[in-house]
């Protein structure tokens, strides 16, 4: 998947990306959080996907590696977001080994507990993928 195929406004580009990476996400976010934060789904699609991930200059695999590294170093409290981004990383073509390596490198920067917690999150995602594939 290449971001230079995306077109239109940042919201359009964000929606095109989300359709490929995380279909239905905008509606799910709106349904869950929309009562207290109206427009949250559109905001995330527009800002995170349309204005950040869709930018030129860095391919999506590298972007997902960076996100996985940052969430790992932040520690265990970001496990739900980490799992979502590991899913995304697999979809854009990262291998399980590449994801494991970047998490393990973060033991240096975030400490061993943060890296081990992240490896456990990755294993959960990988197990789910492997069982869906078989």
């Amino acid at each position, binding site marked *: 998947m290449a971001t230079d195929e995306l077109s239109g406004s940042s919201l359009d580009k964000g929606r095109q990306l989300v359709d490929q990476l995380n279909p239905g996400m905008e509606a799910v976010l709106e349904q869950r959080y929309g009562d207290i934060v109206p427009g949250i789904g559109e905001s995330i699609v527009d800002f995170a996907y349309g204005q950040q991930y869709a930018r030129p200059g860095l391919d999506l695999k590298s972007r997902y590696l960076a996100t996985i590294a940052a969430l790992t*170093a932040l520690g265990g409290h970001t496990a739900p977001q980490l799992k979502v981004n590991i899913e995304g990383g697999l979809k854009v073509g990262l291998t399980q080994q590449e994801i494991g390596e970047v998490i393990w490198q973060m*033991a*240096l*920067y*975030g*400490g*061993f*507990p*943060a890296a081990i917690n992240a490896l456990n999150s990755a294993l959960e995602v990988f197990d789910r993928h492997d069982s869906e594939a078989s």
Partner: protein
Amino acid sequence: MTDNELFEKGLAARKGTLGAEYVEKNLAAADDFTRPFQEAMTAWCWGFGWGDDTIDAKTRSMMNLAMIGALGKMNEWEIHCRGAITNGVTVEEIRAIIHVVGIYCGVPQSLECFRTARKVLEEQDLL
């Protein structure tokens, strides 16, 4: 134990680790804004916590360097690094504690501790 007894016990423990001069300066500098906390902290942290001799002062200093190092509160780490030396923690032991901070909290955090420890140890001609 009355509140006042706990405060006096804490004051003695606090001076024993951090030095009478430092503690008296701190209490004298307290104003209406900070005095209630200074007094409560002296009674509670130092009287109730440090005042319990189940764990000796040297071990407590080592625990503090590990905990405060993990939290990354480097101003307090520096104060407790001086206290640790007063309580008999050696340069080699401080180094070993910083290594553990690196393992559990990451290399950048251990480098912060080394930087602060070097400042304190050089001040005291221990490096």
